[in-house]
């Protein structure tokens, strides 16, 4: 494995994260609980699609096979996607949407704060821009977690269920495989094990303030770094890639 090959795959993983969650959030367009929230969620979706563009463009340029970021997004199959499993989980109700965003945004905030120090200048630059956006996503999801958790009996029940349902997808954030270790050695990647404690303490504090219980650590789902996904990703891709599959190279 050369540094170049490894960085290509690393950028792909990060790009897939924001592409898939961005797509999930975009499904809520016109379906938000109120107009204001509809716009807030689609704004977050747009931030994520923007970050995806930068990351996949970079991945394509490292790969050097004259692919574009669109080729990477629309022409890979499920087992060549490397997003964390939590990104592809369905929106369900508003509580699930918020819990997923809370877990992801706190992780991304800590992650990109570290990646900003990367020796890879492009990844560092993308990180600086992303952090500003993620700070806002984090504030938005923390505020809603507090409102829903400490709100009515119904909102509390739903928020607790969402937190419990999604908890098993959070272990994956802190896994290191050979590629991570290799790039960490070259001062390019982030040591995710080093941000685990901070993530846990931030999430625990937020959940406690929201009068919610922190789930006990149990079995954690894994697989995305090897391209193994839950059944949800296939459904996302069949919708997202439909046009490109049905009409390859379509132009308008």
């Amino acid at each position, binding site marked *: 494995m050369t540094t170049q090959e490894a960085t290509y795959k690393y950028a792909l993983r990060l790009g897939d994260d924001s592409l898939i969650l961005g797509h999930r959030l975009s499904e809520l367009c016109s379906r938000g609980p*109120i*107009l*204001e*929230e509809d*716009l*807030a969620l689609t*704004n977050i979706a747009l931030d994520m699609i923007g970050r995806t563009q930068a990351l996949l463009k970079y991945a394509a340029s490292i790969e050097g096979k004259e692919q574009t970021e669109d080729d990477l997004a629309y022409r890979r199959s499920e087992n060549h996607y490397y997003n964390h499993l939590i990104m592809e989980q369905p929106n369900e109700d508003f509580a699930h949407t918020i819990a997923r965003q809370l877990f992801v945004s706190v992780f991304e905030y800590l992650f990109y704060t570290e990646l900003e120090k990367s020796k890879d200048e492009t990844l560092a630059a993308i990180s600086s821009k992303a952090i500003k956006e993620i700070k806002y996503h984090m*504030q*938005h999801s923390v*505020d809603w977690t507090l*409102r829903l958790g400490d709100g009515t009996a119904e909102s509390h029940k739903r928020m607790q269920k969402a937190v419990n349902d999604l908890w098993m997808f959070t272990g994956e954030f802190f896994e290191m495989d050979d590629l991570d270790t290799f790039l960490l050695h070259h001062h390019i990647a982030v040591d995710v094990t080093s941000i685990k404690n901070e993530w846990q303490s931030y999430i625990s504090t937020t959940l406690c303030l929201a009068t919610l219980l922190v789930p006990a650590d149990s079995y954690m789902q894994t697989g995305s770094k090897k391209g193994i996904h839950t059944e949800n990703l296939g459904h996302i891709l069949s919708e997202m890639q439909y046009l490109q599959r049905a009409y390859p190279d379509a132009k308008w």
Partner: protein
Amino acid sequence: MTTDTQLDLWEVFIQSKSGLPYIHAGSIHASDNKMALQNARDIYTRRGEGTSIWVMPSKYIVASNPDDNDMLFDPANDKIYRHPTFYVMPEGAKNI
């Protein structure tokens, strides 16, 4: 008028550049201060319209009654001498 069931109404004021006045941009729904600021940001500043936002609950706005328009605004209509249009512009002055 149908009843508004979507949280409280807030008025949004945007300042486009430091030093300029805050201009009324529209209204939003929100249940608390923080949500009001975030919703205002998401709805009215997505295309770089502003550098600062004020929000205030619409219920605190005191508005004039349209029935009082005659009393309040008509008397101003025929007092052209209240406009500074009878002064001769000093030579060389560009902006007065």
